[in-house]
């Protein structure tokens, strides 16, 4: 399965993300989910970024809205725009999951 997972929260109350597997997974950080790309709590990367085999993306508009810039984004994460998200959904992944 080729799955694009959207994370829009920083503190998450469900654990589906940890358990879901996909042959190809894209993790798109939007809304408050962008904090996974920029905050190092107690000096450590967000555990979200350790999802094995996944590609990580963060929405630039939501970064800037919250006072961050692309320069502060973890090197594992690619900064993208709305058009890129559309391309990921329509071309690169078969299914989406908004967690």
């Amino acid at each position: 399965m080729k799955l694009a997972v959207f994370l829009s929260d920083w503190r998450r109350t469900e654990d589906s993300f940890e358990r879901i597997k996909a042959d190809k997974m894209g993790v798109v950080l939007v809304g408050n989910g962008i904090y996974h790309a920029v905050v190092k709590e107690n000096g450590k990367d967000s555990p979200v970024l350790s999802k094995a085999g996944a590609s990580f993306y963060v929405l630039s508009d939501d970064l800037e809205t919250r006072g961050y810039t692309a320069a502060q984004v973890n090197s594992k994460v690619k900064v993208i725009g709305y058009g890129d998200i559309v391309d990921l959904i329509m071309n690169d992944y078969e299914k989406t999951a908004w967690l």
Partner: protein
Amino acid sequence: MGAVKLLFVVQRPPYKSENPRLALTHAIASQTAEIYMDDGDSVVPIIAFVGDGVLNAVKDQQAMKIYGVTSTEDHIKNSLLIDMPVWVCKEDMQRLGLKEDQMITEAEDRGAELRTKFVSFAEIQKEMEAVQHLLFF
């Protein structure tokens, strides 16, 4: 297109948010969706409760008595009545200390033949791969 399978995944407990209820009411709406579809097309929903969402399937809910609103239990029983598979994640039940006898297992009083299935997350994952679309609530 023929039959399109949809997996509704409920991750949150009931009542604080409308989300779990909307998962059930949307899934049940598959029964009448044919009015908008071409001949031969259909949608085949499955609803799976995972994480804290398994708390939706605890039996003896009294929402109608207390608040005058349809309980989530009522919607789950209606789902069984229309032969819509209702799955509950076993590992999450265990984590929350829930036993099968605390859960909604059937709706025989309404004439439903289908029973709730208690499954592993691995089975739900397999279904995620098999369906056409995923709807997380």
